């Protein structure tokens, strides 16, 4: 009779990971949702470029001597009108925002609007006082907000999707009881490690794909300057994501091992979902609050969002991401050791959900 040598921890882990990946890639739901996510990112980048390009000059109609005065500002697209009536007609059919005609006043111009004061036109024609800003922000706040939301949403959606998949696959193995055969074949550690590795590879691959798409999208739409600004923070995001995801993966696997049925799974993973929501909402509300961001960038659960954002804003010292990464890695190791104990103890318990306290006890 042939005897086979059971694979050691690493090959066994890889076999488990490879199955996870294969089954995931076969799932249409997964492929479709990944495609949608990728399209969303590309779409928003293209939308940004269209939005940016559309900032054309306001259109006005001008009459007589007003024409030269308006053209001198170089802030308008001027339509020359022969008479005041003709200019008013252009305003009425909304082919221009306003009409500018010569008049007697101090400025020597009258602005005709349709149903309200065309304030953008007025302010461009007005003499503005000199403006001096003491602490100029080199970033457009709109873009900062977008980047903050992008990091937050990406981390949240990716962690939730893959985290839930890990928990589901643990529960599936418990529910179908194949886990008994698996446990009799390979070390439990290989099972857990394989699940984490397999799903992390997928999550990581997805994030890198999105990061690449974002980079290429920015280049292709000519937003090179923005890429230069966002680039380093995207790299940090990917690095933090990798470590943060492994930590969350271990938590989701442990949560899955506590229950025996898919129906009970949601209750079990809710605390982790909450932990993920907090940094997401925090970054939406406090993206412009450096103090909150500083805290977020060191708390392991929010560091993958907080630190890249601070790097993007240029308010993180060079060593800060490294320190935060060390904290995150240490937490990840602690969570893995705790998670694997819960996982190991939870696997064979069936029926009612296992209490966390019981699962932490030595078997």
């Amino acid at each position: 009779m042939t005897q086979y040598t059971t694979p050691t921890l690493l090959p066994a882990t890889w076999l488990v990971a490879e199955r996870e990946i294969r089954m995931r890639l076969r799932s249409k739901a997964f492929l479709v949702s990944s495609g949608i996510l990728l399209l969303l990112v590309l779409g928003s980048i293209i939308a940004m470029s269209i939005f940016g390009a559309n900032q054309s000059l306001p259109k006005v109609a001008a009459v007589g001597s007003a024409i030269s005065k308006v053209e001198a500002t170089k802030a308008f697209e001027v339509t020359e009108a022969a008479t005041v009536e003709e200019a008013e007609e252009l305003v009425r059919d909304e082919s221009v925002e306003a009409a500018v005609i010569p008049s007697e006043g101090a400025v020597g111009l009258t602005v005709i609007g349709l149903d309200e004061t065309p304030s953008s036109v007025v302010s461009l024609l007005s003499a503005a006082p000199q403006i001096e800003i003491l602490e100029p922000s080199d970033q457009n706040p709109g873009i900062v907000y977008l980047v903050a939301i992008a990091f937050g949403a990406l981390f949240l959606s990716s962690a939730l999707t893959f985290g839930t998949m890990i928990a589901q696959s643990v529960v599936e193995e418990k529910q179908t009881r194949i886990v008994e055969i698996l446990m009799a074949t390979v070390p439990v550690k290989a099972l857990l490690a394989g699940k984490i590795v397999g799903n992390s590879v997928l999550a990581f691959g997805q994030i890198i794909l999105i990061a690449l798409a974002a980079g290429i999208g920015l280049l292709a739409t000519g937003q090179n300057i923005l890429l230069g600004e966002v680039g380093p923070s995207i790299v940090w995001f990917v690095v933090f994501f990798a470590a943060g995801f492994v930590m969350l993966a271990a938590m989701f696997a442990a949560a899955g091992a506590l229950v025996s049925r898919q129906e009970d799974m949601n209750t079990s993973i809710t605390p982790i979902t909450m932990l993920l929501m907090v940094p997401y909402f925090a970054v939406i509300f406090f993206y412009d609050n450096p103090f909150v961001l500083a805290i977020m960038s060191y708390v392991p659960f929010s560091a993958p969002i907080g630190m890249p954002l601070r790097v993007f804003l240029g308010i993180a010292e060079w060593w800060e991401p490294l320190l935060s990464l060390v904290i995150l890695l240490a937490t990840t190791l602690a969570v893995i050791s705790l998670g694997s104990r819960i996982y190991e103890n939870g696997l064979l318990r069936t029926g009612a959900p296992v209490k966390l306290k019981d699962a932490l006890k030595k078997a």
Partner: protein
Amino acid sequence: MLELTAVNRSFGERRVLKDVSFSVAGGRMTGFVGGNGAGKTTTMRVILGVLAADSGSITLDGTPLTAQQRTRFGYMPEERGLYPKMKVAEQIVYLGRLHGMSPAQAKGNTESLLARLGLGERMDDTLESLSLGNQQRAQIAAALVHDPEVLVLDEPFSGLDPIAVEVVLNVLKDFAATGAPVIFSSHQLDIVERLCDDLVVIADGEIRAHGSREGVRAAHTSPRFELQLDGDAGWLRSEPGVTVLDFDGGFAVFDVDSESTAQRVLQRAIATAPVLRFSPQVPSLSQIFKEVIQ
């Protein structure tokens, strides 16, 4: 030979296995019977190392079992477990590879096993698309794919129709014929009675009987006879060494104190009236089982 010696296991306060000792000989099919909650599944999980024993030892051919050896066991858990959404052959190959087989070896064994189990046509279907009986056959293939040294099957026949039982039985018998110990549990005592060479009876965590099927039967067969006369058999009541259990005109069921008493009764019966029937009553396994677990 697989041997368990004084194995104990408790869950909290509840002692589930109490000094469980028995052996499973190579090349023989050992039936493991017991009521619900008697400790069958726990015993099997302990053999596989899925659960640890609190005390006691398990040896294979005289040496204590190692984790490495256990991975060469074939196991079919009571609650069936395979991936519902994976293709049948694919997951059996996967399990084979987890046991250290090369992709080619795993594929070859999987295909020949599935063909023998009558699932050759369904290899590329997902497990969930198979009927329960066919899922069961796939489960057997999963336990056998890596040419195990020892086979431990928890309720392998439940849910199978009589033809499927024969198919599975032949595969298992072929396997036992290679000299490997095979232990299977079942609550279908008639099947066990027909299939097993050896028998282990467990009740309330204790081994109540074990040995060869005939041995167990003999040990639990009191010398009981059944007599049918074409006439009155009332004289049996006063026959020395005879205890009458059931009596109805010419029919009687009785215990004897020795084989010679039985012979004497038969001779007297022949002398009295035509004997329609005289036979030892061999209890069925389920009768023995009921008696043993009390």
